[in-house]
């Protein structure tokens, strides 16, 4: 059962990621990224992370991707024009990607005894997670809320400034 679910959603994940690369219209890429994120949420659930699965759906597949699709529609982004890209990307980038993937794959496949994930494995409950989050890690948690507040202010300031500059004629 675990095996079937893993292959189903890992396949969906990879298909979505490859589709993201192949599509030329940004809205299609955004929709395939939503597929990737939702199937990742199922994989988190298979690994026993119930809170993160919910947060993945709500925060990533929900909030962040709505923001993306909203910006795509707001800016009326059309098809991208395919160009060859920079020479640095061709000569340095792709060999580096291949090297990183090969290195990671060999290290992962050589590491034996990492264990297995099965359906019977325990699930980390949200209670367990929140106990640590609100006792040992209370300060980082609160700092994160300040960070998000600053990000909101920064986003508003950045999105407004261009408008103000144009009307002020600076």
């Amino acid at each position, binding site marked *: 059962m675990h*095996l079937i679910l*893993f292959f189903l959603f890992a396949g969906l*994940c990879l298909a979505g*990621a490859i589709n*993201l*690369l192949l599509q030329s219209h940004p809205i299609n*890429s*955004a929709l395939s*990224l939503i597929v*990737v*994120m939702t199937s*990742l949420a199922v*994989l*988190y659930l298979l*690994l026993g*992370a119930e809170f993160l699965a919910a*947060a*993945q759906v709500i*925060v*990533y597949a929900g*909030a*962040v991707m709505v*923001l*993306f699709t909203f*910006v*795509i529609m707001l*800016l009326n*982004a059309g098809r*991208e024009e*395919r160009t060859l*890209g920079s020479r640095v*990307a061709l000569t340095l*980038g*792709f060999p580096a990607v291949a090297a*990183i*993937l090969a290195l990671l794959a060999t290290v*992962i*496949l050589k590491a034996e005894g*990492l*264990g*297995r*994930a*099965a359906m019977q*494995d*325990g699930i*980390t409950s949200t209670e*367990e*997670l929140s106990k*640590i*989050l609100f006792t040992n890690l209370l300060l980082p948690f609160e700092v*994160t809320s300040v*960070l*998000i507040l600053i*990000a909101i202010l*920064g*986003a*508003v300031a*950045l*999105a407004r400034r*261009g408008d103000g500059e144009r009307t002020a004629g600076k």
Partner: protein
Amino acid sequence: MNSASISVVPHGVPLEWYLLLSAILFSLGVIGFLIKRNLITVFMSIELMLNAVNLSFVTFAHQWHAVKGQIFVFFVMMVAAAEAAVGLAIIIAIFRARATLAVDRIDLMKL
């Protein structure tokens, strides 16, 4: 190793496969970052890389039966949400100044 994993198949999935999936997703994100010519799609590739790293964090949290890895993913998600908001605001500002989203034509830091 392959024969061993096939013979014990009814007992779930080896964690190596999850890590391998995470590595492949990360590489696809890097390739997208290199070949995509639209600013928003480039940004989406970065989100894909963040998600790939999150998957490996969750996998290791499962391996060690520890909650710390999951808490790390939680913080990564929060920072990524903030980053997405600011990044998209920057994209809007760039679009206002340049009226284009093609990365080939956005080659100056100055707006």
